[in-house]
């Protein structure tokens, strides 16, 4: 429209979903898709029941079981932990009572909510998507506005299909140039967080742009958007393009035929207009990014794998020095230690950040024809039953098993220390997940975040390793 102010991708999706604006500027925002899981919903359904309320649009809601479940064969014989079982049963009961569709635990489409939303074609460009889970930002890779909400807001969306929201500020993260060999979407997003810090995106929605982002496949874009919350932003997004539409085309619940063409025509109007205003712009040179790994207990404590553990005494002030000393003590590190000398006990390839087929291929490419080092427990946990089936069809499970990796059932697994997959105190883990907080993977566990290829290299080396020293070996699958 002529005369209209240029708008960002976020502005456009936001504007298209405002039902009403309240006098103080708060918007009543319409929600197109509401994903729910077993941990953050029981109290919300309870609230509905107590108030005698219904789910306004059950068909726009989808229940998924992912956080609590075992990822070994025991899931087929029932959940052992009584509290976990109760949470899962409660979601099943609530789904039946309120008419909410649910992917059953033993269905092949079961998996981590942020993997299966896009995979099934439920998460589409231009949508507003929420879930009681901070990594809902993942779905922003589709060109959607997707963010995590708390349980009270889950209840609000269930009852009204809307949320009360204040508009966010716009941040653009521009990543230009080609990624160097051995570097991936995970390295991009870790480098971004290292740059802006864990609170850098607070109050913002991040749009990732630039040719390095454009060049990523959908899985890579999801990895980047996934960790927006680790940079303090509630949502991250990538404008939809042909890569997006090609991905959507083959998804079971996505529109088909003429409906799809009409949708694509609309989606093409979504990318930010030239000259649209961003409150904050951050630029990164993709070529300058080396494979990344975290050393501390915050995702911003990140360095190239060639780096050494920093010296707290070099920090600016005493508060910061004290904080760093505490991190080192927790992580069992000394200043000046080479990251590549750190021995690992466990390697975890999985989580909503890195458990898609592309991630498993990347890990398998490094593992092929090699062996996991003695004393290392290495596991690969696919993000969904469909990813697992695809990987098995490609023979990746065989390559990984032969190398000594455990090949498991889909779920959140060792990302959060809530199900049977946990670190024990003092164990050091190379993990493709998204949080290295104290105790995140189990009390006393020490997490180093990195890419799937870097994780596989660590498993082979028995220590943190530079993936560039482990180029894939040729071989047939």
């Amino acid at each position, binding site marked *: 429209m002529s005369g209209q102010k240029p708008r960002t991708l976020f502005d456009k999706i936001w504007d298209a979903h405002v039902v009403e604006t309240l006098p103080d500027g708060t918007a009543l925002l319409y929600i197109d898709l509401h994903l729910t899981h077993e941990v953050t919903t029981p109290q919300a359904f309870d609230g509905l029941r107590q108030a005698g309320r219904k789910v306004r649009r059950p068909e726009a809601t989808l229940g998924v079981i992912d956080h609590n479940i075992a990822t070994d064969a025991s899931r087929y014989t029932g959940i052992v932990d009584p509290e976990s079982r109760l949470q899962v049963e409660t979601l099943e009961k609530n789904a039946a009572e309120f008419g909410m569709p649910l992917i059953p635990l033993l269905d092949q489409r079961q998996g981590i909510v942020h993997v299966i939303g896009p995979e099934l074609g439920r998460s589409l460009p231009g949508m507003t998507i929420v879930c009681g889970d901070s990594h809902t930002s993942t779905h922003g890779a589709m060109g959607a506005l997707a963010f995590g909400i708390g349980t009270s807001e889950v209840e609000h969306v269930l009852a009204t*299909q809307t949320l009360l929201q204040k508009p966010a500020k716009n941040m653009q993260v521009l990543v230009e140039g080609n990624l160097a060999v051995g570097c991936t979407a995970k390295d991009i997003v870790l480098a971004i967080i290292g740059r802006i810090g864990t609170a850098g995106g607070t109050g913002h929605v991040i749009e990732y742009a630039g040719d390095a982002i454009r060049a990523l496949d959908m899985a890579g874009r999801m990895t980047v958007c996934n960790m927006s919350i680790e940079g303090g932003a509630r949502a991250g997004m990538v404008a939809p393009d042909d890569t997006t539409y090609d991905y959507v085309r083959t998804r079971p619940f996505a529109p088909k035929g003429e409906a799809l063409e009409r949708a694509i025509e609309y989606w093409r109007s979504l990318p930010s207009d030239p000259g649209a205003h961003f409150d904050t712009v951050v630029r990164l040179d993709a070529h300058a990014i080396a494979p990344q790994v975290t050393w501390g207990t915050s995702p911003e404590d990140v360095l190239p794998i060639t780096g050494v553990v920093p010296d707290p005494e070099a920090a600016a002030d005493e508060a910061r020095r004290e904080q760093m000393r505490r991190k080192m003590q927790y992580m069992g590190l000394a200043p000046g230690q080479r990251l590549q000398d750190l021995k690992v006990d466990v390697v975890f390839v999985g989580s909503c950040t890195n458990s898609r087929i592309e991630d498993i291929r990347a890990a398998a490419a490094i593992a092929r024809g090699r062996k996991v080092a003695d004393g290392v427990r290495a596991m690969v946990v696919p993000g969904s039953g469909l990813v697992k089936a695809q990987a098995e069809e490609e023979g990746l499970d065989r390559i990984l098993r032969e190398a000594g990796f455990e090949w498991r059932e889909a779920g959140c697994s060792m990302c959060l220390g809530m199900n049977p997959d946990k670190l024990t105190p003092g164990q050091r883990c190379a993990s493709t997940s998204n949080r290295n907080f104290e105790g995140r993977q189990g009390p006393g566990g020490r997490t180093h975040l990195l890419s799937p290829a870097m994780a596989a290299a660590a498993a082979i080396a028995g220590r943190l390793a530079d993936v560039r020293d482990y180029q894939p070996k040729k071989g047939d699958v």
Partner: protein
Amino acid sequence: MQAFTTLTGIAAPLPKANVDTDQIIPARFLKSISRSGFGKNLFANFRYREDGSENPDFVLNQEPYRKAEILIAFENFGCGSSREHAPWALLDFGIRCVIAPDFADIFHNNSFKNGVLPVKLPREVCEQLMEDARMGGNARLTVDLEREVVVRPNGEEIPFKIDPLRRHLLLNGLDDIGQTMQHAPAIDAFEAKRAAAQPWLAGAAGTTPAGA
């Protein structure tokens, strides 16, 4: 939701930045299906030693802070997950107000919805309040939401600002679902318009997955 008007109580000093939700309530304790009972595991990794006994060095295990109703911390409080169990755990322990230089967005939202008041004050002020809090039982703070001031033990008043809508809901203990329900006709109209303009949203994407 319990209304929040004025609170006078003991403030516990927690001089840390980036207190994340896994510290506030570790994931392994998220298995309850009710909102209550999380208080005993608030800050569990700090409060208890590996054998389950109390760690006497942690502030909330010390008198008078076992009865703290206010928590003073540093930057980016509540970062990490969206778990509302974080404010539930604070509330269940008895903490109804957190004062810090800034908060992570989702935690900030979640707190208001549960009657926990997050008050943003500049770092220097938080440092002063941290000193007040270290004086223990003789130094109670007052947080007055009506007048939007924190009153220090020496009587000094420090103003703060809360979003007017949130303040209104909190002062009156109002549930915002009830408020939103009053907009039902506008939501109906929006849905009708949307179904016409973007039929793909109401089509295949809206059906129950086969076999579910």
